[in-house]
């Protein structure tokens, strides 16, 4: 007996641990969504602040709208299509039916990434084909002008969602059909129904539970999907999951916790509804078989449950439609400008303000990295108007003819940009770009964990700090640190120099200097005091500082990279006028001040840059720490030892890739 009890206790402990392991991440996420502070590791008290913030976040509300709209439409279309398909399967001979059922099941098992990439390729191929046809049609007639260039967007997203939802509906409806007496349809027709009447009056009520479960499953899948959406949404539509992913790229805001909590709850509720329904149906079926023989006492069908059900369904529908309307109001307006920037890289008040002032609707998207943005544009899958690439990428895009020349007459605020940010190497004649922000890369370190003040890149390769250093997971920046340390040009194309810099990183890695190669995790690790030293962007350091006052930032004495992100208009833009209006608006002093305050990156607008301390004082009624200001806007003596990235030749880029692969991370 005792041993069994002991086993039981052991089993329970194991169960508890497994449960903890499975759910701890979600609990932590939920708890931190109520955190007062903006850290994901430091608890500063309970608050609903981030939920309130969510409602004001235009980008998130828009993606909620897109998500709900695409999920609802896809669910409706897939439910109708899937139901008819299931009925079609049902009417087939067994062999054909089994084959088709197998074909139907494969997409559910198939890796999402394969489905996503497959659909993406299909769309690209179809659009190319369409382009050829449209051009040909337009060339010999002018009555109907067909659009020659189709891009992925809401339409393709919807098609993809319908596509992956249909199998779930079929899977859920088919068993209901099989359970149905084959003679029911005959009986209905026998009693005077046409086939259609029989369908509505007999088949639908019989398979309704299956249809509803199918629709709920499809809706859940749609809300939940990221990978397939990511490949098929193109650039102008972004689902909630995609937005969250985009947000993690630049700065981990606790808003993510809040929205993830809501998403988790939504999916949880849907799953509970589906499972409760299934359990209920199972019970009913069992009672049916049991009650078949003995006469059961007359039971008046309860009128309350159907009424409750109807009220519940009605409330749900109203809630959904309400959310759609609320989130959809933003999506009004005829004139549009499609902007693609980085996550958390704008004060969204500015978007609303711009829309109110000009009546132009802003479709604000985010990309992950310069390289990802480049491939989107080069592939022809982007329909952006304004993009905000970094310096070297502006050079590359301009060299490849992908950027439109700007009409600076439409951008009078360009005059407000400081001359030192004009005519830079990436756009020497200033034809394509208007600077958005600038900043430096440096070392972030925890003063409580490091004894001496740091001023050299050497710490990034020093065994003294073994397992305390976070290396940036980006070949260009990582090798930049090594090149600076070795005294080489950060834009060198000399493979021997690059090889030497690489060996430095490789040796340090082999000696266990690095705790890891990271990007976003830097926030948690540095804020939580899990690592002592790392390298990152100045603006992001200031965000970390809010959660951990021990952190310090330095631009090493050997020099570093300084960067400019600049607004450009794509050659393919259909809204050049609106794009220039947007650029002009963002270049204004007011917009630059708001942005600076929001994202902590320095402004290229002279008035804004110089006026920021006063602006800060007025807004927060306290003086801006001059040290902070200097980190944000590096003074000339610091900037003097920094260099800007140049667009490297193709061979050098390949050499970078080759080296980075050898590192084996």
């Amino acid at each position, binding site marked *: 007996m005792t041993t069994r009890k002991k086993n039981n206790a052991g089993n329970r402990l194991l169960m508890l641990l497994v449960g903890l392991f499975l759910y701890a991440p979600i609990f932590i996420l939920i708890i931190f969504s109520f955190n007062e502070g903006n850290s994901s590791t430091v608890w500063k008290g309970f608050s609903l602040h981030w939920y309130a913030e969510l409602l004001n976040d235009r980008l998130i509300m828009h993606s909620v709208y897109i998500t709900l709209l695409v999920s609802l439409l896809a669910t409706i279309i897939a439910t109708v299509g899937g139901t008819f398909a299931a009925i079609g399967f049902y009417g087939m001979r067994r062999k054909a039916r089994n084959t088709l059922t197998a074909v139907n099941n494969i997409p559910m098992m198939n890796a999402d990434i394969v489905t996503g990439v497959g659909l993406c390729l299909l769309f690209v191929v179809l659009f190319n084909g369409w382009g050829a046809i449209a051009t040909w049609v337009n060339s010999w007639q002018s009555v109907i002008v067909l659009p020659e260039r189709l891009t992925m967007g809401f339409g393709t997203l919807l098609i993809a969602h319908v596509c992956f939802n249909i199998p779930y509906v079929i899977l859920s409806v088919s068993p209901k059909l099989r359970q149905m007496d084959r*003679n029911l349809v*005959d*009986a209905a027709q026998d009693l005077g129904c046409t086939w259609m009447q029989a369908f509505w009056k007999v088949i639908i009520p019989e398979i309704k539970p299956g249809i509803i479960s199918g629709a709920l499953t499809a809706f859940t899948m749609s809300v939940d999907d990221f990978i397939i959406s990511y490949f098929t949404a193109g650039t102008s539509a972004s689902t909630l999951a995609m937005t969250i992913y985009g947000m993690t790229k630049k700065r981990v805001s606790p808003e993510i916790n809040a929205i993830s909590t809501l998403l988790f709850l939504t999916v949880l509720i849907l799953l509970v509804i589906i499972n409760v329904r299934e359990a209920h149906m199972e019970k009913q079926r069992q009672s049916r078989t049991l009650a*078949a023989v003995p006469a059961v006492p*007359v039971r008046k069908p309860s009128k309350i449950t159907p009424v409750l059900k109807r009220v519940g369904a009605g409330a749900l529908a109203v809630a959904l439609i309400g959310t759609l309307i609320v989130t959809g109001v933003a999506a009004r307006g005829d004139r549009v400008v499609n902007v693609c920037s980085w996550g958390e890289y704008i004060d969204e008040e500015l978007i609303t303000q711009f829309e109110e002032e000009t009546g132009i609707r802003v479709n604000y998207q985010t990309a992950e990295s310069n390289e990802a943005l480049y491939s989107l544009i080069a592939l022809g899958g982007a329909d952006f108007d304004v993009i905000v690439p970094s310096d070297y990428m502006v050079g590359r895009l301009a060299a490849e003819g992908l950027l439109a020349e700007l009409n600076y007459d439409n951008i009078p605020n360009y005059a407000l940009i400081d001359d030192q940010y004009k005519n830079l190497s990436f756009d020497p004649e200033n034809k394509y770009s208007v600077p958005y922000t600038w900043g430096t890369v440096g070392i972030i370190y925890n003063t409580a964990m490091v004894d001496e003040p740091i001023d050299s890149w050497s710490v990034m390769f020093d065994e003294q700090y073994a397992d305390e250093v976070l290396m940036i997971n980006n070949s260009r920046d990582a090798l930049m640190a090594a090149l600076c340390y070795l005294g080489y040009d950060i834009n060198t194309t000399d493979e021997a120099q690059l090889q030497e810099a690489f060996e430095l990183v490789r040796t340090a890695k082999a000696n266990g200097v690095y705790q890891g190669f990271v990007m976003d995790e830097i926030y948690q690790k540095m804020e939580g005091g899990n690592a002592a030293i790392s390298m990152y962007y100045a603006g992001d350091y200031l965000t970390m500082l809010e959660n951990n006052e021990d952190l310090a930032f330095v631009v090493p004495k050997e020099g570093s990279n300084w960067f400019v992100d600049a607004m450009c208009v794509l050659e393919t833009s259909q809204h050049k006028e609106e794009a220039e209006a947007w650029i002009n608006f963002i270049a204004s002093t007011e917009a630059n001040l708001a942005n600076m305050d929001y994202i902590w990156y320095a402004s290229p607008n002279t008035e804004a840059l110089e006026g920021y301390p006063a602006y800060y004082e007025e807004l927060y009624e306290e003086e801006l720490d001059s040290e902070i200001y200097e980190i944000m806007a590096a003074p000339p003596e610091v900037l003097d030892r920094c260099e800007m990235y140049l667009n490297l030749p193709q061979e050098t880029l390949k050499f970078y890739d080759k080296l980075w692969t050898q590192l084996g991370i």
Partner: protein
Amino acid sequence: MSKELIRLHNLCMAFDDELVLDNINLYINDSEFLTLLGPSGCGKTTTLRIIGGFTTPTSGDVTFDGVRINDVPPHKRQINTVFQKYALFPHLDVFENIAFGLRIAKVPQAEVEERVKEMLSVVSLVGFENRRIDQLSGGQQQRVAIARALVNRPKVLLLDEPLGALDLRLRKDMQNELKRIQQQMGITFIYVTHDQEEALTMSDTVVVMNKGRIQQIGTPEDIYNEPKNAFVADFIGESNILNGTMVRDNVVKMYGREFPCVDGGFAPNEPVDVVIRPEDIDIVPVEQGQLVGTVTNVTFKGMQYDIIVDFRGFKWLIQTTDYSPEGGRIGVRIEPEGFHIMKKSEYSGMFGDYSSYSEEYEELADAGVEDEEESEDEE
């Protein structure tokens, strides 16, 4: 004789090159209770589905009241069906199930209530209006199915093995009930079954079918007393079927002996099948017997004994109230009326020998709670 209502003319049906109905010709009179009887796969359900309009024949015509109705869909035919396993609508209660056809026809509510009430009393289900279908017993569901069909006042009611799923007692009660309902409503019933007893009990006319062909059409008495071939003789009741020769009218020769009988019209010395029903054989002392055989098996059946008697290697079934011990020698006598002579047919030699008799033969014969495959094949 009442007037003809339905006629099937040269009806053929093939599923995937497999001939299911082979040239069926049949007419059905108004107010007649006609039964299609046959083993599973004989085509009886297919015939019924063609009359109901659920299946279109490969060739041949169906006429209703003299009008060809091959292409008339089921919902436009004045015919209703009671399906195998009832096919009641599970999402509707008893009342709404019965009212279904009337609702489709947009009959006013008051009339719907009146007619449903009337049907409920016809099938003795008054008070069950609000029951859910899954709260009914098999027999009650059966009655709902009948009421649901009859409430539309069809000219013809098709019944597809309606009693197959009921237990024996209930089946007997429902047989009487169905006959009563048919007489009360005065309409034509076309009934499909594989149960010969059911067919004989209820029908005005029985159509025996096998392998897609009609074997015999006649009254229950005709079918039983004057089977046309060995198949019918064997399928309807028990029969000993022997090879014989018709020496001349009223004289048949078997076992090298001549027996007086009452049949005629055959060529002299024509080989024939001789049918002797087990109950038409009298057991007599050995010296008085026309034939002498050895009892090999005795089964007590309640009302009678089933005994198997070996006559020179051919085993007969005899039903008698007199006990004869196993192994005993007995004589038998058969009255001239006891012989039934049939022409030789494709079925000759296939039936009527009880050599393989065992006590389970009855169960084996009844094990036909079947037709699953049949209906599946015919979809």
